[in-house]
């Protein structure tokens, strides 16, 4: 189930979900992946191999900034945080996404 969901993930939703996990606090890569899994109650599993390229693309786009910091278990890790334009992007995408999901639900509703 997680595998197939992952493959069919709507384009752009990976970025959106990463942005969402970072809305409240900066996180390192592993925590981002873990949080997505937990929040989806284990239904969504991000492929670790595609997480980091995605993070780098988001850095390039200027949505994220990365700083080296110390993790909970006292090791050095890279923490990602939202920039102003990242926050704006999240707002925009989540609005569109929610509207689209609602619309699709309406179309697909049991009649």
């Amino acid at each position, binding site marked *: 189930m997680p595998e197939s969901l992952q493959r069919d993930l709507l384009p752009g939703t990976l970025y959106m979900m990463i942005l969402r996990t970072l809305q409240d606090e900066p996180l390192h890569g592993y925590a981002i*992946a873990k949080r997505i899994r937990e929040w989806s109650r284990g239904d969504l599993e991000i492929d*670790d191999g595609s997480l980091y390229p995605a*993070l780098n693309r988001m850095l390039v786009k200027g949505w994220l900034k990365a700083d080296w910091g110390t993790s909970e278990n006292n090791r050095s890790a890279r923490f990602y945080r939202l920039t102003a334009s990242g926050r704006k992007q999240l707002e925009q995408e989540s609005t569109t996404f929610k509207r689209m999901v609602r619309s699709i639900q309406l179309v697909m509703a049991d009649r």
Partner: protein
Amino acid sequence: MSWWKAIGHRIGHFGRRSRFDAEMDIELRFHLDSQIDDLERAGLSHEGAVAQARRRLGSRLRTIEDARQAWQFRWIERLASNLRYALRQCRKHPGFAALVILTLGLGIGANSAVFAAVDAVFLRSLPFPEADRLVHVYQRHPKTPLTQTAPARLEDWNRLNHTFQAMTGFYAEDVSETSGDLPEKLTQVWVAPRFLDVWGITPALGRDLSPDELREGGAPAVLISDGFWRRRFAADPGAVGRQLRIGGLSPTIVGVMPATFQFPIRDADVWWPVPFGGMWAQPRMRAATVYFTVGRLKRGVSIAQARADLATVQSQLAKTYPKTDADLSADVQPLDAEMVRPVRGSVWLMFGSASVLLLIACVNVAGLLLLRSIQRQHEMTIRASLGGSRREVVWQLLTETGVLAVLGAGLGLAIAAAATRTFRVFAGSLPRMDEIRIDWRIALYALAAAVTVTFVCGLWPALRATAGNLNLRLLRTAPRHGTGRHRLQWMLAGIQISMAVTLLVAAGLLVRTLQEIGRVSPGFEVRSILTFHVSASYAETTDYRRMTERIDRTLDTLRAIPGVAAATTVEALPGIPGRAQREVTLVEGRSEDQPKLFADNRYVAGSYFETLKIPLLSGDWCRQTAAVQAMSAPRPPMVQAALVNRSFANVYFSGSSPIGHRLVDAGGGPGALISGIVADTREQGLNAPPGPTVYWCFSAPGPTPFFLIRTIGDPAAIAGTVRRKMKELEPARAVYGLTPLEEHLDEAYRENGLRAVIVAGFSISAVLLALIGLYGTLGYLVDTRRREVGVRLALGALRQHIIGRFFAQGLVVATIACAIGLGVSVLFGRLLSGMLYGVSTADPTTLGFVAVIILGGAGIASLVPSVRGARVEAVQVLRDE
């Protein structure tokens, strides 16, 4: 945790890419370890957890590669988008773009054209293999300016040194070649042994001279030039092996030199080896000055080493031959530098001027960009608020400048191509100038100039435009009017004016030099003199008596033409520089230890002084014509009468009279009687003071001397009559080169003129750019203060007063800048001093003239915007608010 430290250390050492990889590696390892910990906590065995975590992460290298690509791709994408944006800006503001492109095109074009000359003259090596090993070797004697050496000494140098691969020498002579239907005048170069070894080239056809042909009494053999081969043999390969007929000998052609071999003497036809031996080997001939000597250094030998080596050799020779070699020293110079010495100063001057012009263009463009950046402040603020970092915005602005600079460089190359074509036409006779061309090196130079320009004039405005917190600026809608920024703009305008002033002063001094040379009284008649040649064969030199009779007969015919006041022949034209002084000796009356006599030796017909109106000071004219003895060698016969000029008498006969003494030319013989003293003239060049001169009275120093006639009317008008009369007298001969003496003199000073014209062109462009800069600065200031002016007018200020204040501001800056420019000119004026004649580097006329032009121009450039600034209608401005 030493593993981390090791990585950390490596991070510091490696470049960006490996640093990125290392950081990714740390990050992924952290990810993996965290995953393993979590899985173990969930109950998996250590091995199982490791395996599962590894599987989830996949290939670490692949992941790093993918992540890195995110950045690489972006770099190109950003550049492309920057370029797109820059081009859109150009299209949106075509006026601004055109102004910048034109300004930079002018600056880069002038600079690239002159760089092409620098490249040809200084940077490109001579067209020989390993040309940097070629040197000019010469001797110095404290008492003579001559640097040629004797064949015997050349052989000694070549034999005794340890630093040269080989040395050779040469000298040129005009000879008559008589194997064809008609005798032909050839330029023959006598060459010492090892000639081709030194140049490092081989004949294009045939072979080099064999040892047998280089032996005294060996078979006579010659190499011929490509030009002669085509002209005479129609490029027939069978020419090799044929015989020529020169001076009673029949040398065999053994080889044809390649067309590119145009050095040392460009129009050489024949190279004839001079074996060492016989007369030249006699010790007394060591005093002769024959060969221009060229050597090829061994690999890795420096000029200093060669110099030291030759000094040792020459000190040995001084002991062996104290009589001839004691006072001599030997010196070595790189051959390429030696060749271009005459034009070196001019080329550097032009390069300097062109660089100042480019600098002015840069400052000008920097000013324009600064103004633009103020207008675009709003745009900058928006870009910053959209998440563009300062670095990104600066890069964007630099890309825009870069696009304009590259377009400017393109325009500049087109200008340079046109300029160099003109250059080759006008300066083709100067050394190596014919090699000037626009090629990839020049294109590369122009491109490098564009990149430099981008940073020099783009970086500062870009940094200023993005300085401070961009986000906060959104609050202000109007441009900021800080006085600091205005001070900066005034400074830029002032710098341009100062630099333009220095160029204008240089140009002014060069023009004044031309004027002074033109104003010099040469001491001889210039205006109404017509010069020409009458064709003749060098074969005539086998019978000097007939040749002299023929030339005298021609002179008589010319004198009989109505409108001709006088006629003469002369070996070399007066007032044309470039002849070395030669030694003369008195037959009697001077002892060995007295200083040697050096004089400019001129062969002239007796009527020379009458024709050129040179007055006789004492004694008598040349009464005797030269006694022409039967001569077979191509050397002028013994001249029996001579005149000397006043300098000669003053320098060598202070107090006593030289009249009645007998003089001998270097050749020896019975000597010519000094019959009189004539006034000093500037025979050696209009810009050279007269020096000791001996006039040998002989009308036929060669078969084709210059004929000079003084006409009563316009010299050019009588040309037709001269041709007609000559046709009646000598139907088989052609009259050619009919040119007024004035034109010859103009031609001789063409380099001076060209130099002055080019620097003047640069300086006029510079002044225009600087004035445009001033105009733009004041115009901007006026615009930003529209509102203030409106308010003040409404409060009753006088319009004249406002004009006056703006105007004064422009003029004060111009005056200060002009004063600084003049000061700099006087300080650096000595760079020019070698090219000036008759004016000092602080010439008050020139400096005053420059100040008037600059301040006058600045006045106009300031007045226009000032008036415009005060024409504001108070009501209109207040309504706009």
